[in-house]
């Protein structure tokens, strides 16, 4: 027991110590370098704090957030729809797996970004289209896996309780696939912020991606850092406050726990 306690204390010390050490090391390195190469922690902290007060920055953050949320919602709905079709027909399943998914999985994200702008010009819908195209394979893989893992006997049981399809879907099917959908949501939400933000470099005049591109081209390294940290904070916050609880609520032990 004492061994475990000691490991935990040392572990916490090491974890917080290393974070502190990283910040101090960063600060010391930044003192010898111009701020367009490596801005110091206070500069970056100030830039991050500006996101809380400056309405223009808040607007960019909000726009990015709205686009990501819309893209994730639409992509997930689409994926669930396709997966349901695949469940009732082996041909659709084969089509999805051997044609659609292969193409979507290997399509370079920047290809969607370029084509999106060529096809639809610069607009909010273009950005959302590009983001959907990038995260759809992740949603679809998880949705297919979820529907494949449904125990047919449980569905049969559901059929013996109710004839309403909607009722059966919301009461039996959805809770059964929810762990997979929640995992898909977490992955695609993260990917959307990390990679699909490339959409805003080409197809937008607003959003964090646009802000980062502006900052990079004016060698405003503090702003680039600040955007990165704001993204880390947003991804962390949404994952902890919304997606992880969702995943937990529908985890397989749900029945045992409550």
């Amino acid at each position, binding site marked *: 027991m004492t061994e475990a306690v000691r*490991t935990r204390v*040392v*572990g916490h010390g*090491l*974890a917080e110590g*290393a*974070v502190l050490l990283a910040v101090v090391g960063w600060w010391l390195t930044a003192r010898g370098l111009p701020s*367009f*190469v490596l801005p110091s922690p206070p500069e970056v902290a100030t830039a991050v704090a500006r996101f809380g007060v400056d309405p223009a920055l808040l607007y960019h953050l909000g726009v990015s957030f709205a686009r990501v949320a819309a893209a994730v919602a639409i992509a997930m709905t689409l994926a669930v729809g396709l997966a349901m079709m695949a469940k009732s027909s*082996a*041909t659709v*399943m*084969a089509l999805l*797996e*051997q*044609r659609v*998914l*292969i*193409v979507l999985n*290997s*399509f*370079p*994200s*920047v*290809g969607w970004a*370029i*084509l999106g702008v*060529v*096809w639809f010009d610069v607009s909010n819908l273009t950005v959302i289209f590009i983001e959907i195209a*990038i995260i759809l*394979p*992740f949603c679809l*893989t*998880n949705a297919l*896996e979820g529907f*494949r893992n449904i125990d047919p006997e449980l569905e049969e049981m559901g059929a013996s309780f109710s004839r309403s399809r909607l009722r059966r879907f919301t009461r039996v099917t959805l809770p059964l696939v929810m762990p*997979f959908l929640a995992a898909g949501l*977490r*992955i695609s939400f*993260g990917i959307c*912020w*990390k*990679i699909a*933000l*490339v959409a805003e*470099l080409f197809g937008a005049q607003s959003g964090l*991606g646009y802000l*980062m*591109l502006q*900052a*990079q081209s004016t060698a405003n390294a503090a702003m*680039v*850092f600040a*955007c*990165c940290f704001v*993204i*880390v904070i947003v*991804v*962390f916050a949404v*994952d902890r406050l919304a997606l992880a609880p969702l995943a937990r609520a529908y985890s397989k032990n749900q029945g045992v726990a409550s």
Partner: protein
Amino acid sequence: MSSVGTTGRAVPAGLTPSRGPARRAWILHGFTVAVLAVWWIYSQFVPAYQLPGPVAVARRMAAFVYDPLLAMQLGISLAHATSAILLAFVIGAALAFSAHFVPATRLLIDSRTTPFLNAFSGIGWLFLGILWFGIDSTTVVFAVTMILIPFATINLRAGLIELDAELMELGRSLTRAPARRFAKLMLPMLVPYMFAALRISFGVAWKVTLTAELFGGNAGVGYMLNVARQEFDTETIFAVILFILLFVACAEVFVFRPLQRRLDRRYGID
């Protein structure tokens, strides 16, 4: 977090093989032909810079095959992607193993380093790379490596956590040399997870390498895409994308899936 691994899983064929796989194959090929036909018909009605027809794109692809330029650029991109995958694998494995063997670092790695890297924007790494290293291959490899590290760590950590404690105990009763146990027991048991890490890394690497080359590289397929984009040369854009699709899809179908099937059989994963 281990759910990231699901994206790299092999997918079993359709559930009802009895209803004529031959007929299904026809439908699949018919679907491909239908897509090409729709593409061709639609391309007749829109300007070529928006959607070039399949024939024009095929002709451009054929021209590229005889042109050593594209082969070279593709080789450069492949080198970028491969070195980033290997670097990320080594660094990710180092993080995962240190979390496993040195319990004191577990909290630091599992709940500080990995989540931070996992949440850090890929575009951010790219722009930081440009600020630090300028526009060249270092930036590309740096950005892609940083994006891939969490995938390697998460998969290997999942493997290390799932290690069968009883088998490890058996190993301890057979030999006292830790290096021997590591090489003969632990590494073989981790193979499926290493494979999953490499497979996911390969897929993600191709998606982001082009982005990195487009903004921060002075060579490679992504750089070519940027030039074509500025010249509104949509045929080249399509040709490049199709080459990438072919390359990645072939790697997936002919290398990764057969390997995954063999691994699944060997390790009894259902």
